C-alpha cells in the first residue's frame, strides 16, 4: 500500500515537473499600420491588458508603419508621431516595409534613431554614410526561453522595395529566400524562430515550404485578412488587413526546448472598448499638427476657377517629375477659389486630398489624346486640366456631351506632334479610369501628387495664375 501511494506521489511530482517545463510565449502582431494613429489608444489598452496577464509578451510590427495619413507623414520630422506612439505602446521590434523608405534614407535613419525598438531586416545593406542602425535578427530571452526574430522586406522587380527609386539608392537589397536561409543557425540557438516578413501573404506561403526551421511567419504587405492564422508546411502564418483594424494574438507553447503548439486569434482594435489615456492625449497632440499651417508660398492674386487651380496642380506635377506634360481628371481639383495670401500645407491637402500616387507614362501624342478623351468619358466633371499643352475640345453639335475632336497645340501655339513620344505625369486615379489604347500603362513614382504640389509651391516662392486657361471648349459647326 505504501509503495502504491509513493508511486502516485512520484507520478504527480513528475507531471508537475513536466508541466513546469512547458512555457507559453505570447505575441501581439500588427502589420501595415499606415499611420492610423487614431487607433493607438485602443492598441495600447490591448497591449497593457495582455502584458498584465502574460509577462512573456512580444509586440511586433511586420512593417509599413507609416504613409497614408498626412497628420503623420507631414509632421515636422516626417512620421515621428508613429515612432513616438510605438515607443509608448512598447513595441519590441519592427521589420521594414517598403513604405518605411518614403522619406528617404536620411529620414529613415532619423526615425530609427528615435525608436526605442530595433528594426529587424536581414536583406538590406545600407551604405555606412546613412548611419542606419538595422539588425538582421534579434534574440529575445524570456527567463531562459529564447525567441529569435529575423526580418525581411519585399524586393520588387526593380531590385528594391516599392518606394521611389531615389529613396533606395545606396541601400543594397538581396533576394528574400536566399538571405533568410542564412539565418537557419537561429534554430540551434533559439527555442522559437519567427520570420517577421513584409513580402505579402502569397509569397509567405511560397517560402514556407523552404523554411522548415522557422516556427511562424508574422506577415505583412498584402493586407490579407487571415482568420487567426493558417498552417502552411508546418508554419503558422498570420496577417491582417491594414490601418490597425485588427491585431493578432499568437500563443506559442514551448516544452523541452521545442515548440509543441502554436495558435492565433484576431483582436479587433477599432472597436476595442478601452483606451489608454496617455496615448489618447498623445494622439490629440499630434492631431493638432502645426505643420499643416506652414506657409509654402504666397499667392499674389486670388485664384477664381477650377481651371486656374488645375493649371497650377498640373504644372506642379509636370515640373517636379520632369515630365513634358501633365494632366488631372477635373474631379481631382477639389475647390475653385482661394484668396490671395499665404498658400499653406492645409490648402494643398484640401485641394488634392485623396492620397493619390503620381504615375508617369511614356505616350505618343495620339495615345495622350485618346487618354484625355477616355478620362473625360469616365469622370463626370468634364475635360481634364492640363500642363505642357493647350487643348481645344470640340463637342458634337448633335450630341453636345460627346467629344468630336480634341485639337492639341504646344504652349507656344505650334503644332503638336501626335507621333512623338512624351513623358506624361498624372494621378493614379486618372491612370486607372482612362481605359484607352496605349503601349505603356506607366509606373507609380511612389510619391503622392499632393507632395509634388507642396514641393512646387515651395520652389516657386510666389505664384500668380490669374486668367490662365489651357482648355477651350466649342461645339462643332456640323
Amino acid at each position, binding site marked *: 500500500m505504501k509503495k502504491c501511494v509513493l508511486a502516485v506521489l512520484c507520478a504527480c511530482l513528475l507531471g508537475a515537473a513536466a508541466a513546469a517545463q512547458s512555457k507559453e510565449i505570447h505575441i501581439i502582431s500588427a502589420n501595415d499600420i499606415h499611420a492610423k494613429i487614431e487607433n493607438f489608444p485602443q492598441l495600447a489598452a490591448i497591449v497593457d491588458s495582455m502584458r498584465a496577464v502574460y509577462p512573456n509578451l512580444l509586440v511586433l510590427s511586420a512593417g509599413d508603419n507609416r504613409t497614408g495619413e498626412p497628420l503623420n507623414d507631414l509632421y515636422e520630422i516626417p512620421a515621428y508621431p508613429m515612432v513616438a506612439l510605438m515607443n509608448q505602446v512598447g513595441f519590441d521590434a519592427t521589420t521594414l516595409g517598403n513604405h518605411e523608405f518614403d522619406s528617404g534614407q536620411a529620414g529613415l535613419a532619423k526615425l530609427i534613431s528615435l525608436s526605442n525598438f530595433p528594426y529587424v531586416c536581414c536583406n538590406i545593406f545600407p551604405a555606412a554614410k546613412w548611419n542606419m542602425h538595422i539588425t538582421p535578427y534579434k534574440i529575445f530571452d524570456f527567463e531562459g526561453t529564447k525567441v529569435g526574430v529575423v526580418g525581411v522586406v519585399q524586393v520588387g522587380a526593380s531590385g528594391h522595395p516599392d518606394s521611389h527609386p531615389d529613396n533606395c539608392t545606396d541601400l543594397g537589397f538581396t533576394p528574400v529566400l536566399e538571405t533568410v536561409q542564412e539565418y537557419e543557425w537561429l534554430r540551434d540557438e533559439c527555442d522559437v524562430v519567427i520570420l517577421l516578413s513584409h513580402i505579402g*501573404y*502569397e509569397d509567405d506561403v511560397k517560402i514556407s515550404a523552404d523554411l522548415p526551421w522557422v516556427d511562424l511567419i508574422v506577415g505583412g504587405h498584402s493586407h*490579407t485578412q487571415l482568420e487567426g492564422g493558417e498552417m502552411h508546411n508546418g508554419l503558422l502564418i498570420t496577417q491582417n488587413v491594414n490601418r490597425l483594424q485588427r491585431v493578432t494574438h499568437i500563443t506559442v507553447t514551448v516544452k523541452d526546448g521545442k515548440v509543441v503548439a502554436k495558435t492565433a486569434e484576431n483582436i479587433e482594435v477599432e472597436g476595442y472598448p478601452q483606451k489608454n489615456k496617455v496615448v489618447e492625449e498623445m494622439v490629440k497632440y499630434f492631431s493638432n499638427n502645426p505643420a499643416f499651417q506652414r506657409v509654402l508660398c504666397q499667392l499674389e492674386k486670388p485664384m477664381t476657377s477650377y481651371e486656374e487651380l488645375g493649371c497650377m496642380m498640373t504644372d506642379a506635377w509636370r515640373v517636379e517629375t520632369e515630365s513634358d506634360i501633365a494632366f488631372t481628371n477635373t474631379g481631382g481639383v477639389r475647390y475653385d477659389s482661394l484668396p490671395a495670401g499665404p498658400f499653406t500645407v492645409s490648402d494643398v491637402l484640401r485641394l488634392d486630398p485623396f492620397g493619390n*500616387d503620381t*504615375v508617369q507614362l511614356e505616350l505618343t501624342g495620339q495615345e495622350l489624346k485618346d487618354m484625355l478623351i477616355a478620362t473625360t468619358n469616365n469622370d463626370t466633371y468634364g475635360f481634364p486640366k492640363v500642363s505642357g499643352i493647350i487643348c481645344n475640345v470640340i463637342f458634337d453639335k448633335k450630341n453636345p456631351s460627346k467629344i468630336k475632336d480634341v485639337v492639341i497645340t504646344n504652349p507656344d501655339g505650334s503644332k503638336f506632334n501626335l507621333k512623338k513620344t512624351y513623358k506624361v505625369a498624372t494621378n493614379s486615379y486618372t491612370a486607372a479610369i482612362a*481605359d484607352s489604347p496605349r503601349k505603356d500603362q506607366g509606373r507609380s513614382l*511612389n510619391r503622392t501628387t499632393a507632395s509634388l504640389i507642396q514641393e512646387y509651391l515651395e520652389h516657386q516662392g510666389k505664384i500668380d495664375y490669374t486668367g490662365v486657361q489651357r482648355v477651350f471648349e466649342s461645339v462643332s459647326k456640323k
Partner: protein
Amino acid sequence: MKVKVNRTVVDLFEGAQVRHALLRYCVRRRLGLSRVEGAEVFDAYGHRIDLDAPLSEGQTIKCKLK
C-alpha cells in the same frame, strides 16, 4: 502589369493597388465607379484584402461590388 479581376484581365500601371484594378474593371464593365469604395475583395486563396493592398503581375482577385 496584368491583373485578373473576376474573369476580366485588366492592364494597369506598375505599383497599382486593388482600388485601381477595381476602377478599371468597373470602367471596362460599364459599372458605376462609386461602387468601388464599398466593394469586398478577395485574393486567390479567398482571403479578404483591402482596397489599398498592393498588386503584383499576374495576380488574381475577386470582388463583390455593392
